[in-house]
Every structure is written in C-alpha cells, then in structure tokens.
C-alpha cells in the first residue's frame, strides 16, 4: 500500500564532526521547510567533545504543524559511520545502527554507509526493514574525488528512499544559493553526488524487490517559513525588543546566542561583548543598562551560578537586565549537551536577601521570540532581573516556523525614564517611594540632574542608610513591584481541557508540546485529563491559578529535574499536594512515556514517578497511600 506520508521521523547518526550529522539534518530541515512541510529537530544528541563521539539528530517531518517531536520511534535511520580501519576485527563505528535500530519501526528504512563493507542486518530484515547499503564515502572519494560530498550522496539516497524531490528541484536551489558563488562546478558536483546516491537506492530497490510505501510530497502553501532554533528566535526577539547590548561568555548551549548577536547586533547599532568571565559579562550589561541601553546576558547553569552575585545588584540598584538561562543538566558541569529544567530554584532563589524578579519560560521555539519581546518590556518597566529560561533542546533544536510570527511586534515603550524637561530644577530622587514600587529613572548625561544608585541599602536619594524606617520603606517599595507585576502584566497559564473534577497535568517551559501530546494519548485511553502549562513562572500568578485548582482532581506535575522544583513552588504557593513525574537522565521527555507515567501517578497519592530511573515509582514519606487527593 503506497501513499502520501503525513509524518516521517528520521534519525541521522554518525561520528561527531567527522561525519557531518548536523550538515545532513540542516539540509533536510531547510529543504523540507522550503517544500512547505514542517520539520522538527528538537532532540539534540551530541556529546561535550568536538570530535569522535556518537552524534545523532532526530528530525520529524510532517505535512501539518505537529504538536511535538513525538516518540523516539523512527521510520528511517541514516547511519553515516564508516570504519577507518576496515580490517580491524572489532568494528567500532556502527553506533547509529547498534544504538538506534531497536527504535526503528518494523518495515522501516535503514540507509548506512557501506564504504568499508556491509554489516549484518539479518535481524532487521526479519522485521521487514528495508536495508540500503550506500557506499557514500567511497563514491565521493573514488568517483567524485571530493570526500566532502559524501553527505550529499547520502542525502540523494535518502530523498529517493522517501520518494521526495525526484528531480532535485529543491536540492538544486539550495545548492545554488549556497555554492553558486563558488561556481557552477561545485553545484554540479553536488548534484552528481545526489544523483549517485539516488542510483544506489534504485539499484537496491531493483535487486531486493522492495516497494517503498511512503512518499513525502511537497506542499507549497505560499506561506514563508524559516528553519530556525530557539536561540536564534530569541535573538530576533531581543533585537526587535530593543536590546542593543549583549554580553556572554562561551558556554553550551548559550553560545549560539552569543554567535547570533555577534553577527547581527552590530548591524542594528548595538554592541556585543564576549566577557572574560561570566561576571564581567553581567556587570558590563548592568553598566550598559545604567547608561540607558536595553541590555541582555545569556548563559547556562554553571555561568548563571557565577552571576548570582549580580542578581542582588540588579535587584537592589533597580537596573534592568534580561538574563537568559539556557538550561542544561546539572549539577556542577553536569552534562553540558543534555537538557534539563534544573535551574528554577537557582533563578527564583539565587542571591542573598530578597529581590523582586520575574521568571519567564518559553514553551516553544516560537515563544522564544514572542516571550522575549515581553521580557524586554517587563525588564524596562520593573527595573529588575527578568530571567528567560530555555533549555538545551529549545536553544539549539530547530524547527520550521512560519514567518508571520515575526510580524507580531508591539511598539517598544521606554518605561519610567524621565527626560530633561521633566526633572530640570526639581530635586530628583532615584528611589522615590511610589505606589507601584517603580521609581522613574534618569539616564546619566541628562542635563541638570544626577542620580546616586547603589547596592548598599539606601534612602530615596540613593545615599547609604541603615535607618530602620528607610530600609523598610525601600524593601517594601522594591518588593511592591511584584504586586504591580501580578496585577498588570502576569499572564495566566495555558489551560487545555477542564480542570474541574478531572486530573490535571502541570508543566512549565519547554515541555508543553510533549505534554499536550501526552494529554491527547491519555484522552484516547479514556482518561479525561487537563493540562495547565506555565510560561510566566515566577512570581506565580496565584490569583489567576487558584481557581483552576480549586475543584480539580489529582495534580501531577511533569518536569525534567530530580526534585520537582516547580512542583515545590506550586505546593508552596497554592498549598495543594502534587504528584510528580520526573525525568533527569539527560534524555528529553517523550509523549507516550509521559502518558504512561502520569497514568501511574494517578493511581497513588504522593506518587513520584521517575522516568528512566532504577526506582521508577516512589511514594513520598507522609503520603497516606490512598487513592484520590
């Protein structure tokens, strides 16, 4: 039975750096996007080395916008490995096949580089897998005399296996744009490479008598789309949101923001500083913000830990800075290339003493853009740290995004900055006590007026004080900003389904697409579960959230960390008990496993279900073990 595929999940694997895994998926993502399809490559499988580790990039292709990247079940496996020493008894470089073929569905497709010999595939063939040995590297080296085109040979082979881009219209266009300037020869060489890959697949099809069941068809819609990462989207958001100073120190997975900003911000009149350390970065951003520029820093957990000291400075001096934390698995250096939602406690609790702060966590690549626009306004308005929590997959993962998104752009408003005519001849108090808690600032250089700004406790003028009344007044004033934020700007969570009387799944940040899909699965199983998902994480908009949980069934918080950091916040703020589904093994959440785990958690009060753990279900001490709340 042959037909148009609505959904194909491909995994491309190989040796990091050597085999060009990301080059292949990048080509695929762009071409599928141009063809009007939707590509989602959010699960990044690479290691914190430059060369030699096993790397894999799953990429889901669909003909309508998918909810999430889906379960780790692949229709197609592309293995780029070859053996540098084909005579060795042990063949070490077959990781893609060894590790991922258990997740290749029956009747699926395997393409592998057979340049250094064929590999045993009987067990796969027994499952109906169609196996295509493609000597891509050999063809590139011996026939085309350029090793670099081996990935294009494989891409051509893959396109044939998917019955996609039969005349290479899309591939040709991409090659011409990319290599056109290098000359016709380069484009032709690459097209010849693709054609050779195609021929190899044709030959296998003829020899083996395979019939291909899937055909990936372009769906030109006329709507422009980009294939883009969260880091890039938030960079565009920051530029449109008026950020003109960015500082960062190299760290995975936030380096992409630094690279983006270095490339683009100067073209919009801004400056980018690669700090000599994490502290120089954030301090320079504070300085730039003091001078009036919208300023942002980006880092990941280890770097954020180093910046904590300055959270207090930002809070006490009331100097706005946007702080992006592209989370990765901690603690300590942890797993630099693996996702986690483990920094929530750090950003809501980091810094001694109390400061006002706002924590936002985008739930999709698109929201990396839209929520960043909001972050820019909030930082300016509330003169406090605004944290922007993404994670490794959201930062570096790529997907097809319709360009209409970027037309959404509310005008920039500079909040609470007094101009010369508003202050001239009047005594100016930088930390004036106001009902909102927001004290209008002036920028240095405003004629006829100066400010004194300080991280030492100060009076309204900014002069040092330990006077108990003045101290209390300043603390009250600063923290009042959170009340103002909750009243004027906090947003309710996403709500899917009816929470009243039903079990409720709760999530925050980048997991929303997976949780939505898990909910669909549970609904199909007859479990009427609602999903409440937060992007405005802190301060928790209690007044907007409490009614949702008032008559709800059991509450299961799903998040990617060991302890359930958001569950703790929710319990503390709403005085409700939560059950937890937690995953912290460095692998992203998948819809079916979440559905299964939530189902298990619903059986028992106090349940903590740990996905991927050796002790998968634990009941909290103090849980009474009874069903229901």
């Amino acid at each position, binding site marked *: 039975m042959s037909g148009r595929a609505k959904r194909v999940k491909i995994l491309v694997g190989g040796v990091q750096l050597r085999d060009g895994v990301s080059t292949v998926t990048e080509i695929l993502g762009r071409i599928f996007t*141009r063809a009007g399809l939707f590509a989602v490559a959010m699960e990044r499988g690479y290691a914190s080395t430059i060369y030699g580790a096993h790397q894999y990039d799953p990429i889901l292709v669909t003909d309508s916008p998918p909810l999430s990247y889906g379960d780790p079940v692949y229709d197609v496996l592309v293995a780029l490995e070859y053996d540098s020493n084909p005579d060795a008894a042990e063949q070490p470089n077959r990781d893609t096949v060894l590790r991922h073929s258990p997740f290749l569905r029956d009747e699926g497709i395997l393409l592998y580089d057979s340049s250094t010999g064929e590999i045993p595939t009987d067990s796969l063939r027994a499952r109906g897998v169609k196996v295509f040995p493609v000597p891509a590297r050999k063809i590139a080296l011996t026939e085309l005399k350029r090793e670099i085109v081996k990935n294009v040979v494989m891409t051509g082979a893959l396109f044939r296996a998917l019955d996609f881009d039969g005349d290479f219209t899309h591939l040709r266009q991409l090659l011409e744009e990319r290599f056109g300037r290098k000359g016709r020869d380069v484009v032709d060489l690459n097209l010849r490479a693709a054609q050779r890959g195609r021929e190899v697949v044709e030959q296998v099809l003829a020899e083996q008598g395979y019939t291909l069941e899937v055909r990936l068809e372009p769906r030109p819609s006329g709507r422009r*789309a*980009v*294939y*883009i990462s969260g880091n*890039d989207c938030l960079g*565009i958001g920051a*530029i*449109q949101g*008026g950020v*003109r*100073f960015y500082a960062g120190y190299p760290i995975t997975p936030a380096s992409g923001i630094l690279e983006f900003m270095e490339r*683009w911000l100067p*073209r*919009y*009149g*801004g*400056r980018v*500083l690669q*700090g*000599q*350390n994490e*502290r*120089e970065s954030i*301090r*320079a*951003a*504070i*300085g*730039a*913000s*003091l*001078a*009036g*520029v919208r300023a942002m820093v980006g880092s990941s957990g280890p770097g954020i830990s180093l910046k904590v*000291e*300055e959270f207090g*400075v930002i809070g006490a*001096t009331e100097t706005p800075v946007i702080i992006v934390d592209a989370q990765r698995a901690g603690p300590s250096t942890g797993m630099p290339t693996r996702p986690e939602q483990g920094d929530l406690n750090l950003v809501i609790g980091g810094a001694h003493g109390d400061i006002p702060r706002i924590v936002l966590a985008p739930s999709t690549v698109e929201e990396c853009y839209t929520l960043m626009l909001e972050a820019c306004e909030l930082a300016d308005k509330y003169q406090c740290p605004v944290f922007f929590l993404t994670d490794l997959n959201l930062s570096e993962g790529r997907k097809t995004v319709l*360009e209409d998104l970027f037309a959404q752009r509310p*005008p*920039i*408003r*500079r909040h609470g900055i007094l101009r010369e005519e508003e202050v001239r001849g009047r005594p100016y108090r930088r930390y004036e006590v106001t009902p909102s808690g927001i004290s209008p600032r002036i*920028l*240095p*250089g*405003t*004629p*006829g*007026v*100066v400010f*004194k*700004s*300080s*991280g*030492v406790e100060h009076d309204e003028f*900014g*002069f*040092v004080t330990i006077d108990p009344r003045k101290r209390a007044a300043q603390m009250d004033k600063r923290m009042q900003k959170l009340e103002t934020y909750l009243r004027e700007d906090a947003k309710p969570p996403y709500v899917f389904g009816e929470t009243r009387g039903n079990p409720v799944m709760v999530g925050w940040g980048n997991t929303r697409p997976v949780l939505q899909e898990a909910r669909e699965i549970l609904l199909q199983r007859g479990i009427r579960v609602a999903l409440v998902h937060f992007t405005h994480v802190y301060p928790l908009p209690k007044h907007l959230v409490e009614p949702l949980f008032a008559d709800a069934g059991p509450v299961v918080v799903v998040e990617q960390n060991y302890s359930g950091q958001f569950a703790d916040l929710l319990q503390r703020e709403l005085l409700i008990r939560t059950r937890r589904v937690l995953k912290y093994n460095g692998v992203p959440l998948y819809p079916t496993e979440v559905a299964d785990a939530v189902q298990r958690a619903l059986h028992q009060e106090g349940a903590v279900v740990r996905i991927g753990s050796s002790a998968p279900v634990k009941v909290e001490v103090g849980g009474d073990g009874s069903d229901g709340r």
Partner: protein
Amino acid sequence: MDLMAVKVWEENAVPKHRIQWCPGCGDFGVLAALKQALVELEITPHELVLVGGIGCSGNIRNYLNGNAFHGTHGGPLAYGLGIKMANPHLQVICLAGDGDTFAIGVENFVHICRRDPDMVLLVMNNGVYGLTKGQDSPTAGLGQAVEVWSEEHPPMVDPVLLALASGATFVAQSFSGDVKHTARMIVEAFQHPGFAFINDFSPCVTYNKFNTYEWFREHVEFVPPDHDPSDKDAAWRLVQDFARRGKVPLGVIYRNPRPRTETRRLPIWETELADVDVEPILATFR
C-alpha cells in the same frame, strides 16, 4: 582655584560633616584632588559617572556631585566598561580600593587594561582592608623588608607592574598627601584617550601603621623630567630603578595611547529602535 566652581561639586552629595572617613584618612586628599581636577577639566556633574568599589574608598562616590553607581566587590571596572561602551560621551571614573582592584577584582583589572575603555581608574591604595578592620590586601608590605615568605603572607602585588604587563596605556602614581599633584594626575588621566590607571597612595591612618604620611614623604620621589613615558622599556626600568633605591615614583610612568575605533552612543530611544527590519536575518534561515 575657583571656590564657587568647587562648591558645585559639593551639591547632590553627602554633606561634608557627615563624611564617614577617619580623621586624617588619605581619601580626603583624593576627594579634594578630584574636585580640583573636575573643575579644571570643566566637566559637568551630569555627564560624570562615578563608579565606586566596596570599601571605605568607594564611598567617595557619594561625597561629591555626579551620577554614581555602586555594586559588587571587584565589579567597578566591568560596570564602567558597560557604561562607556553604551555611551562614550559620558565621563567615567572608577574609584576603588586595593583589595577591590587587586584581590577580588583582579580578573577585571587585567582585562580592562587590555580592553582599554576610555575611562579612569583611581585606586586608593592603602595596603589594607580598612572597612573590615585592617586585614592585609594584596598591596600590603610596601617598603617592608621581609626575608621569608609563606603562602599566608606572599610578597605584594605591584599595581604598576601588573598594569604594564596587562597592556595598560596610561599608568600613573600619586600620593594623596600631595593634593595638587594628585589632581594633576587625575586631569592627565581624564585627558588620556583610553584606560587611565592611577595608583594613588592614600594612607589608612587607623590600620596601616607602617605606610604613614611620614613614611610616604620620606620615600616618594617624582618621576624625573627626562623620563619618556611613551617608552615601555623606560617605564620598566624606572620602576626597577626606584625599587632598587627603596623609593616610590610619583607621576606618569607610562602613557602610550593605542589607535581606537570610533564608537557612538547605542540606540536607546523609541525612535532609534523603531522600524527594525529583520528580513536580512530571516533570509539566512530559509
């Protein structure tokens, strides 16, 4: 000196009688010198940003007119860097102690010397952590003959040598007991196009009983008029020569501006940020 002009620098500041430095503190001399220099330079308070460090010395930011900022221990240079990168029209001076600059903030000091932002750093160097009651700072031990060292009590950091080694383009030394000369150094520092570092000896009368005013008067000596400050080798030689003779040089030891790229104030206002076209960015992701 125009007294009325000096008075301007006492507005928007903590009143004189409320200044919280010990009587005789060297920082009074720095304050007086700073006011004189600012008058001479005809800087207006609103265009000046004083970035204070942590410690007694950092309080100077509130003891005179001008915008002021104060954050973490060791942070002033990095805040100043950001301010200056954002708005090169501002006059920025970082005012910090030796602990702030050469201990907890040494990472900034070294790299700011290389980055060379057009701002001034005046270190009020007294060899001790005064505000926490006199612990040794990295510059403790100036002029003291010690024969055996330990991990707990290592030899001192010489700020001038560290600055030279780090690529600073202006290095000067002053003694706050000589207000006029200190003011002169501040003026020259502001006039230097790039990062200008002044190591000012500012005696702590309470906790440093060795490097007293008397000690400095006996040991300071002006840089000879034939010294060529643009010659780095000469600068090294001068420092070593003075050290051999047990003397402390005062004056401009090194001054050699680097060619700089022109920068402008970054976009701040709505009008400067409107109508941003991100099409060129999107084009790279298609």
